[in-house]
C-alpha cells in the first residue's frame, strides 16, 4: 500500500512535536473565562433584594428556596435564601428575571464539595458578610419553614 499518506501523517506529528503547546499549567495559570460566563454560585446582594421570589418561580428546577417575613408596615424582609447548587441548570433565568439585579454569578468554577449538603449554599449569610464562607450544613428538609415560602 503506498505509504504516501502515512508519511504525510508522520510529518504532521513531527512538526507538531516541536510546535507551540496549547495546554496550560492549570493550577498556576488559568484560562480566562468571558465576562458573560455563567458559572460558580449565585452571589446575592441582600440589600438590593426585595424578597419578591420571582427568581424562585422562574427557575425550572426549583433550585432557589427563599423564605420571607413581612414586618409591621408591610415591608418584606428576607429571612433565608438557600441556593441548591447541586440542581442548578445554569440557565440564567433567575438573573434575567430579577427586577433589582440582586443576584449574579460569582464566576468561580472551582466549587466542588465533599458532601452533598455542602452544595446548598446560604447566600443570605454570605452576602451579609457575617460569615464569608458560610456553607450551611442544613439539609433541605430540616430548614425551619416560616410562612410565605415561595
Amino acid at each position, binding site marked *: 500500500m503506498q505509504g504516501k499518506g502515512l508519511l504525510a501523517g508522520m510529518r504532521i506529528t513531527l512538526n507538531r512535536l516541536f510546535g507551540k503547546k496549547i495546554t496550560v499549567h492549570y493550577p498556576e495559570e488559568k484560562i480566562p473565562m468571558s465576562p458573560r460566563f455563567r458559572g460558580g454560585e449565585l452571589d446575592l446582594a441582600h440589600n438590593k433584594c426585595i424578597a419578591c421570589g420571582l427568581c424562585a418561580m422562574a427557575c425550572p428546577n*426549583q433550585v432557589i428556596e427563599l423564605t420571607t417575613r413581612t414586618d409591621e408596615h408591610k415591608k418584606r424582609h428576607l429571612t433565608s435564601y438557600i441556593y*441548591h447548587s447541586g*440542581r442548578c441548570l445554569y440557565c440564567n433565568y433567575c438573573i434575567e428575571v430579577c427586577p433589582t439585579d440582586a443576584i449574579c454569578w460569582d464566576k468561580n468554577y472551582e466549587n466542588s464539595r465533599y458532601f452533598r449538603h455542602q452544595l446548598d449554599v446560604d447566600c443570605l449569610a454570605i452576602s451579609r458578610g457575617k460569615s464569608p464562607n458560610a456553607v450551611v450544613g442544613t439539609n*433541605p428538609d430540616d430548614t425551619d419553614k416560616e410562612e410565605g415560602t415561595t
Partner: protein
Amino acid sequence: MSKQMISSELFLRLQAQFSPGVTIIGEHFQQALLVESEELIELLTVLKTDPNYQFNLLSNLTAVDYVEYFEVVYHLYSLPLKQSATIKTRCTNDHASVPSVTAIWPSADFQEREVYDLLGIRFTGHPNLLRILMPDDFPEHPLRKAYQFTPDGEKG
C-alpha cells in the same frame, strides 16, 4: 416556514376512498387525518405505495394520553414528492392496542417499543414488543397522566 403540506384535495380523495373510517381534523399546519384503527394498515400501505403519495419515510411516531383515550400520531414524509402528512388514530385506554406498522416502515420498530414502554399502548403484530428505555421490571407506564411522581425536592 413554508411547509409543503399534503394538498387538501389529496386528503379529500383519501377520505372518499375510505369514507366511513377517515375524517379530516384541524386546519392549516395542524391538519391531520383521523383514522379508525381497523383501516389504519390499509390506509398507510396505500399512502406508501400509491404513486401520487409515495410516503416512504415515517419521520415520527408518537402517542398522547388524552385521559379518555390515547391518540397515536404518525408523521410521514415523501422524499420524491417533498410533501408531509400527519395521520392520527385513537384507541380507548382500557384495552389500548393499535396495529403495528413495522411491516410497512421498519423505522417504526424502536418508536413503537418506546410508546409501549412509556404509555402502555400494545402494538399488535410488533416483532418483539419489549420495554426499551425503562428497566424491564418497571411496573407502570410513566408517561401516562395518571402516573404522578414526586422525587425529593421536586415540587412539580
